[in-house]
């Protein structure tokens, strides 16, 4: 059940910045300091604790990857960032996740606004059964964009951002489902960035793609980090090593090690990390 209490008006008053900066959406300033702070986060599925006292800071405009064996809590942690776990009944989160100073765990927060600012791309590419144009225009439209010319501009800009424009510009009104897997995933990324989020969450975005499509997505991620803070969950450790600036290793709900990817993959500090990344267990 979606736990959303809409208190937009009161919230806006609470968070109105004193320095005169314009607010893009509740809680988000146009401020380069958009690091994500995860403070003492515990997460429960019913009685089962899935995350244990997670503390980390994800710097803005960097790619952070979460790695770890199945069931370690990495996807749960990712979904905490945009409160996707609210959709799972019987779940509970303790602690704070602050994005640009805004507490995303605030029950008063407008979750749909939060998710507009934190886009998400999933393992299985999931374009809407609509045209390519409509897939991209859908997000801006439900957020109130009606101007056809502006929508067209957004569609073009978003598709160009994911290097899909040249491939689909002559068939924008064809169904998105006819695209190849790699194209569909890039379309989903374009759809996520069409609403101009600050953060992009990616849950195993390449696991259903061939190596060539995977490379394109990875190149795209590196390009996109110029504008977005990206958090990725991946089972492919080589992918984490290739694209991520920082990597966190989770095991049984605990954050075992977190630091620069280069350090983690050449000289990890914790023996458990070494064992996992070298395949000594798991």
């Amino acid at each position, binding site marked *: 059940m979606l736990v959303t209490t809409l208190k937009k008006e009161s919230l806006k008053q609470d968070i109105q910045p004193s320095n005169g900066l314009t607010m893009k959406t509740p809680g988000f300033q146009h401020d380069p300091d958009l690091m994500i702070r995860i403070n003492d986060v515990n997460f429960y599925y019913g009685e089962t604790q899935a995350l244990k006292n997670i503390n980390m800071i994800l710097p803005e405009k960097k790619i952070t990857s979460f790695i770890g064996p199945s069931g370690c809590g990495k996807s749960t942690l990712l979904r905490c960032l945009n409160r996707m776990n609210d959709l799972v009944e019987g779940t509970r989160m303790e602690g704070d996740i602050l994005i640009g100073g805004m507490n995303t765990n605030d029950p008063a927060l407008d979750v749909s606004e939060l998710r507009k600012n934190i886009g998400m791309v999933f393992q299985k590419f999931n374009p809407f059964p609509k045209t390519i144009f409509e897939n991209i225009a859908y997000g801006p439209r439900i957020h109130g964009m009606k101007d056809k010319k502006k929508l067209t501009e957004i569609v073009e800009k978003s598709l160009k951002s994911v290097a899909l424009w040249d491939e689909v510009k002559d068939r924008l009104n064809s169904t998105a489902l006819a695209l190849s897997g790699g194209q569909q995933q890039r379309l989903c990324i374009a759809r996520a960035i069409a609403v101009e989020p600050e953060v992009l969450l990616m849950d195993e975005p390449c696991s259903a793609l061939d190596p060539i499509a995977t490379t394109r997505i990875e190149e795209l991620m590196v390009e996109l980090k110029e504008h977005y803070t990206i958090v990725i969950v991946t089972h492919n450790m080589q992918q984490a090593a290739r694209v991520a600036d920082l990597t966190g290793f989770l095991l049984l709900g605990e954050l075992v090690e977190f630091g620069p990817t280069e350090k983690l993959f050449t*000289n990890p500090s914790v023996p458990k990390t070494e064992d996992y990344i070298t395949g000594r267990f798991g």
Partner: protein
Amino acid sequence: MSRHAIHLEKAIDELKRLILHLGIDVEESVKIAVQSLTERKLEQAKQVIDADYEIDQREVFVEEECLKILALHQPVANDLRLIIAILKINNDLERIGDLSVNIAERALYLSDKAKVALPFDLQNMAEKVRTMLRQSLDALVNRDGNLARQVCEADDAVDDLNREMYSCVEQAIKNDPDNLNSYIQLLSASRYLERIADHATNIAEDVIYLITGEIIRHGSKSDDTVF
């Protein structure tokens, strides 16, 4: 342990065996080369020169194995550092093999020349160098960082000995110019020993990298900061 890790572990075990085998052969080569020089044993000098082909072939084989592991297993962390260290140590060992050949060639030249007297104990210098080489390989086998650092520190003493040898040869040539070529050959041998000590130091530095992940060469320290 995953299947992938089992395969990688087997490949690494084989690689360790190969590099140690090469290390033992190179150590032996240095020992015989020095003996051939100090004891004027012609046969031994030839033996060192002939054995170098085998060392070169082994060096190529070890490198191919390292490249295979990198391509097939994409090792990380400790495994990655080990492969990189072995790749570099392999190169140093091959160079030490070449330097042994150079010493043996000096021995061949001197074998039919009149024995010259030098107030310098080349045998003692050779012993120090061989100890450094042996300790650097022991440090690799036992992952002994302290021993590796000891090897690095010992290099200065060998450098000093080489300078001392230079002064001795300089003086000897002035006193006995007829045997100039023989003195120069001995000076070259000292220089080759000093180079072997440098390669042993490189091996020790690679062992320290393997253990700590820290590159200590040229007093450098890697920087982890990304933002």
